[in-house]
Structure formats: C-alpha cells, structure tokens
C-alpha cells in the first residue's frame, strides 16, 4: 500500500493540473516525488532549498497574490522551526494556506528526537482559526487533502506512516461513532490510533468515536456520546502529545459532570531508537497498554 505521503504527492500533482490557483512550496523534502509536477508546472512547484522560514514566508506571499499555497516538509521543520512565520505570515496577515507535514511523532524512531514533532498540534492550538486534519489512512488523507486545498482557510494536514488497516468514510467534519456502548464511557481515537483503540476496547462497554478532523473539535458529537448518562468518563487517544485535546474536550462538556484522561505521546524524551512498535509501547499506545489504562480509568 502507498503511504499517506505518497498519496499526498500523487493527489497534489493531479490538483495542480486541475486548479491554476494551487502552488506547492517545498524545502527539499519530497522534491523527487514532485519532480514530474515541477516539470509540468515550473512556476507553481517551488523549491526554496533548506530554508523553512522562507518556505512559510514565500507560501504566504503567494497567498497575498491570490494563490492557494500548499507548504510541505517534516512536521518539526514545518510547524516548530518557523512557528513565528506560521503565526504572523499566515495568521496575522490574514491569508490562508495548507500545511502538509510528514514524520509525525514517531515515524522514524531511529532518526531520534530531532525528527519527531509530538507538540505540533498543541503549538497550533495557541493560534486562532486553524483546521487540523489527522487522517488515519492514505484514502482518508486524499479526501482531506482535496477538501483542504479547495477552501481558503488555514489548514494543517498531519500525515504519518502509521495507518489503520482499512479506510473509513471521512465525509463530514464531525467525529464518527465507530462503536456504541451503553454508558460505560467514551473513547476518542484520533487518526491512526483507531485500530489500536478498537483492539484495546474489544468487548468493553464503551462508545468509540473516530476523529480525523480534530480542530475545530467536534464538541456536539462528544456531548451526544456523553450526555445520556451521569458522570461521563472520556479517554482521548492521540498520536501526538498526551493531553493535546484535553482542554477542548473539557470545554465541550463544561456544564456536564465529567472526567477526562488524555493519552498520547509522553512529554519526556525517550532517547531511544528502534522501530515504531517499540515507541508505541514506550508511550503506552499499544493495544495492551491502552486496554489497561482505559479500563483503569473508566471501569466500564
């Protein structure tokens, strides 16, 4: 199967043919994949070299002239390194753009912490007006990319090598109810965490919601899932910094008695290499650890 990043390149290459408003801005990463697109559209596929501040600034400048820029590199160099450009050149200037990252939190464990960005979504949470998509499958990535590029807003699409086995229909912006429980609590699985969450909650009385668009946070769906019962327990399972969406879930339930457990990537550096499964275990995001932590909190 192709990766989300492969699908991003193939989809965006087609979108460049279809829509003259679209431009791709690169900082060397994925340049080979965009080679055919660059030859077909030399003025709309721009590589600025290893210059991430310019990656965002140039994309924003293109947006000032009416283009729809798609800016891409690894998450750590797309969101963290040029964060002030993201804040000012896009947000403060009042222009839109689509940031598409690769690498996520633990895609390349042997590459170490410099290539991990578990805090990217939490950082964007300090800014106003961002839509954040976290697809769980290449098919979902394609759908969400097409929707993002068609709009005018500021959108972050977080791609990962971690993928669920099967794609789901990501038709609307809201959370999908994947498993319906009977009052035992709510588990929200974000993007590529769904397979592990479904395995971890097999046979448990919990409602499982699937979230691929996490900002704006679908408060209505969480309230519907939580509302019918007394004090509701909510567990968030996110493939980035633990607790990233805890405040959003808390805001959604502000007038209802509730408890929230935010699971995700730990804050402390592991300083370990290895493979993705090693890191999922280390962060307690494998099915077995998840089942222990979910049952310990919800007692379903």
């Amino acid at each position, binding site marked *: 199967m192709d990766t989300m990043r492969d699908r991003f390149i193939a989809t965006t290459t087609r979108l460049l043919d279809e829509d*003259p408003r679209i*431009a791709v801005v690169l900082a060397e990463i994925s340049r080979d994949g965009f080679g055919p697109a660059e030859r077909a559209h030399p*003025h*709309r596929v*721009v590589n*600025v*070299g290893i*210059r991430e*501040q*310019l990656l*965002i*600034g*140039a*994309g*924003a*400048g*293109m*947006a*000032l*002239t*009416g*283009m729809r*820029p798609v800016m891409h590199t690894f998450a750590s160099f797309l969101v963290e390194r040029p964060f*002030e*450009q993201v804040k*000012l*050149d896009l947000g*403060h*200037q*009042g222009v839109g753009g689509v940031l598409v990252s690769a690498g996520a939190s633990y895609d390349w464990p042997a590459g170490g912490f410099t290539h991990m960005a578990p805090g990217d979504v939490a950082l964007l949470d300090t800014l106003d007006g961002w839509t954040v998509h976290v697809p769980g499958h290449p098919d979902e990535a394609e759908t969400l990319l097409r929707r993002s590029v068609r709009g005018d807003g500021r959108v972050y699409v977080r791609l990962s090598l971690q993928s669920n086995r099967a794609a789901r229909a990501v038709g609307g912006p809201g959370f999908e109810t994947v498993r319906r429980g009977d009052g035992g609590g709510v588990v929200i699985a974000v993007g590529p965490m769904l397979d592990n969450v479904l395995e971890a909650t097999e046979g448990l009385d919990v409602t499982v919601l699937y979230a691929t668009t996490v900002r704006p946070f679908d408060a209505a769906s969480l309230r519907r899932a939580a509302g019918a019962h007394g004090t509701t327990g909510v567990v968030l399972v996110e493939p980035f910094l633990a607790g990233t969406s805890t405040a959003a879930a808390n805001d959604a339930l502000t007038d209802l008695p509730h408890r929230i457990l935010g699971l995700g990537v730990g804050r402390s550096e592991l300083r370990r290499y290895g493979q993705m499964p090693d890191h999922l275990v280390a962060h307690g995001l494998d099915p077995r650890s998840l089942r222990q932590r979910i049952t310990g909190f919800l007692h379903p």
Partner: protein
Amino acid sequence: MLGRMTNTTTPPLHGYGELDRLMGLMTGDEKHGPAATSTLDVLWVLYDRVLRVSPATAGSPGRDRFLLSKGHGPMAYYAVLAARGFFDEELLSDFGAYDSPLGHHPDRLLVPGAEIGSGSLGHGLPLAVGSVLGLRAQGLTEPRVWVLTGDAELDEGSNHDAIAYAGPAGLEQLNTVVIDNASATYARPGGIAARFEAAGWSASTVDGRDHDALYAAFTAPHPGRPHAVIARVAPGR
C-alpha cells in the same frame, strides 16, 4: 500595457513639502521618531515617482506592491500614504489610539494601502519573494514588488533565506531598499551591498536623501536579477 517608467498614480493630495506637517499630526514617540524620518525621502520618491499604485488600483492584481518590512517608525509611511490619498489625514492625529487603524506597527487589515502587517523584523523579504513567485505563477510579469528593510534588520537570518534564494532564482521583479542609518551593532563598510551582490543581486548604494539619485537607483535596469538599493542616511536619523 504600462511602460516601465510610466507612473500612473493619481496626483498627490499633498506634496513633499507638507510631509512634515502630516507627521506633526501624529504624536511623537521617542523610540520610533528617528527611525520614521530615516525612511521619509525613500518612501516619497517611491510613491511619487516609481510605484505604479494608487488608491484606485490598491486592489488591482497588476499593481506594484510596496512592503514595509521595517515596521518600526511608520509615521513617515502613514504620512506618505495620506499624502497620496490612501486615507484621510484626519486619521493621523489618532495615531496609536485604541480605535485608530494606525498603530506603532502597521497592520494590513487596518491600514488602507498597506500590503503587509509588520513589526517583527525579517518577515518582509520572504513575503516579497512569495509575492513575486505568486505574480509570476499567474503570468503577471509586469508588476514589481518593493520591500523596505533597515540595515540592522538584516541581522535577522530570515532575510538571508530570502536573499540567498532570490538571486539564483532570478527574481527580477523583486526590489529591496535598505535604509542604512548604521544602526547594526556589527557591520562592515560596504558589507550590505556585498552580501546582496554575492547572492547574485544587482546592488547600488546611494545617498538616501538625494531624490534624483534615489530615483536613478530605483529605476536602473537589472535584467534577470533582483535589485537592492542601499540608501545611506545619517546615523541615528
């Protein structure tokens, strides 16, 4: 089709001689005052004789763009925009007030005629690079993009991202004017022009108060290359 040297802007409501009065309408600010005047002559020559933009064409895709990157000291900028009719001079007297569109750093969503919001140094040149790329991608090869920076602003590494890219990329539509009032703590004589030239830009250094010299430098041909004008003014002004 516009000729390259044709200035199609409407006549100014006020001439150069009234800029002092317009600046006087704004309250003085000790930090921003001197920096504001260092840009006055450059801004005037650009808006009066070089930039093909007016209040009537401020939203036109084919207009020239002027990006004030050095957002500190925007009083001269506001005075010139008012003189050119982008907004009424009445706004000047409320400079910095809560409900004024004119802050101590400009905001493009508030100031008529302002292409970017600035204040944090080092953002204008990358945005100008992107503006040229965006125009070129739409087949708009006539409009020129101007960005004004300070000599100390070039300390910011983001400028060097833009300078090092724009030269080899051959962005002829890109123009930078550096107001050199020797405010950088670490500088070498001639260092500014040398850095642009090393990156493949055309560069010239002129007296930042001499209108004819500025005009000549601003309009010098630079085929296939971006252009930098280093406008020297007295230190501290």
